[in-house]
């Protein structure tokens, strides 16, 4: 069974992000880049499916500039077999739909039976690419999955998707697109052997033209990034706990009108 995992390189969660001189972009100086955490759940699940079946291939794919190769190296170090790097300046301003179209073109070339991705990349936080990829391909999809099981002949997959108040368990014919939610698994750390081995694995570079993409014009455009409005300064309520609690409740009711 062939599985494609879509990953994205994003700033580390603990990184402070600042707007660059170009108001549409962040200042990348000093940023630590990681594989988006939800994508690690997707990689882990793909590897587990392959290991359980005792055969198959896991291909990692990313869209991004040169530095995004590091994310692919991480995926390969975890155990993916090879990688595809869609690296084209024409895709720098890609919105979710443009990314989905580019990924769909890769999927058509690779013809996997399953595509896994994270529920959202933690930079744009849109959480749309997986669902849009499924739509472009005309495949079924399940978002925010917490569990999955592929049947013996790899024709169907049973998934549990997280919804308000519970899990909905579905049987889905393959091929399909799934997005991983936290709790699906515990991603492995790459071993030293894995890291060394990743250096020898193939990363194929691909341009928009190789994918036959006619247009890379985004449907949604970022016009500017802006800092968050500052929160008004807060107040530490001093005094004995008993008095402080009374004062807090009074403030919440009378000043903030929050209760």
């Amino acid at each position, binding site marked *: 069974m062939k599985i494609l995992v879509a990953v994205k390189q994003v*700033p580390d*969660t603990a990184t*402070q*992000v600042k707007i660059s001189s170009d108001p549409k972009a*962040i200042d990348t100086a000093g940023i630590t880049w990681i594989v988006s955490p939800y994508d690690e759940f997707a990689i882990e699940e793909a590897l587990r499916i392959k290991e359980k079946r005792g055969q198959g291939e896991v291909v990692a794919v990313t869209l991004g500039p040169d530095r995004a190769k590091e994310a692919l190296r991480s995926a390969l170090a975890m155990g993916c077999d090879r990688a595809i790097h869609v690296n084209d300046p024409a895709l720098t301003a890609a*919105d*979710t*739909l443009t990314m*989905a179209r580019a990924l769909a073109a890769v999927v058509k070339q690779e013809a996997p039976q399953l595509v896994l991705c994270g529920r959202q990349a*933690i*930079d*744009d*936080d*849109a*959480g*749309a690419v997986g*669902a849009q990829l*499924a*739509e*472009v391909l005309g495949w*079924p*999809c*399940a*978002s925010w999955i917490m569990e999955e099981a592929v049947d013996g002949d790899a024709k169907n997959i049973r998934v*549990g998707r*997280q*919804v*308000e*108040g*519970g*899990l*909905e*368990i579905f049987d*889905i*014919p393959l091929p399909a697109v799934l997005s991983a939610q*936290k*709790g699906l698994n515990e991603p492995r750390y790459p071993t030293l052997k894995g890291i060394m081995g990743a250096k020898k694995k193939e990363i194929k570079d691909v341009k928009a033209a190789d994918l036959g993409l006619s247009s890379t014009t*985004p*449907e*949604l*455009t*970022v*016009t500017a*990034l*802006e*800092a*968050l409005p500052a*929160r008004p300064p*807060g*107040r*530490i*309520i001093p005094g004995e*706990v008993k008095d402080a*609690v009374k004062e*807090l*409740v009074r403030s*919440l009711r009378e000043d*903030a009108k*929050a*209760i």
Partner: protein
Amino acid sequence: MAGAIWCVVEDDRKGTPKKVMTEVLGEAARLGGPVECVWLTDKATDDGLTQLGGWGATKVWLLENAGLAPYRGETWVPPLAELAAKESPKAILAPVTSRMREFMARLAAKLGVGLSADSVGLKMDGDKLVATRPVYAGKLLSRVTWAKQPWIATLRPNVFKPAEVQAGKTAQVERVSATIPAAHMKLVERREEAATGLPELTEAEIVISGGRGMKGPENYVILEEMGSVIGAAVGASRAAVDAGWRPHRFQIGQTGRTISPKLYLGFGVSGAIQHLAGMRTSKVIVAVNKDPEAPIFKIADYGIVGDLFEVAPLLTQEFKHLLDK
């Protein structure tokens, strides 16, 4: 009608629109309307339809069909895309919920238009819609605009001002006879979570959160007691979830749920940047922590430096006192 703003109805799966729709309808009216609803369901109640009228919808496009439950992208997207192609709305809005998040993304792909997910602001700029949405885990805001109509956006709950209820106002109901494609996805079962008796985390107007300072899973009952007094959901920080004290679904933060309640109360939460990302758009933030240097105090409106095991029970008492009056 052509040029309308469509609000896709999120319901309780029993035929009643969720309250969050008042926010979507309120925003659609502020953007100038005309405000119309589209409701895909296996069963709409008359009360539900009346409610949508009272919230400002002039018309409800009703797609009522047994094949639409449970939600599946493959059954929902084609009929709505077809209707949108015929009726040419200028915008399609929906609240952020588990299914709307996926549905609106697929719909935008089908229609070949842009999607602004998890929007926290919408504004007309001349004849263009501009959306504001948090990016980089809420560390920055991004302004986005669309290349063409319909402008599709999902709206973060508890951010937009709800519509005023206009009693007696009704919406014209137009039943759409759409062909629902056969579904490939088959529902096997729905596994309900053990009911907490408290509101859903992302929908709650008040959220109480417990962090590492809770010291163990057994102590969350202190927060749940407070929750039942003030009608709050109880969540947790990543540290508490990673320690196995609470299930993942209760996690607030960058790798959990994003919340934006009217009131957030954090107990023993230090305020790691990734937690702040998930709650910093809360209207009023209260922090209780032993450590006066805890970063959460930097964004808190009210803080008490103290032992949560002393503060929380007293606070519950005080809330009870207030609400009993």
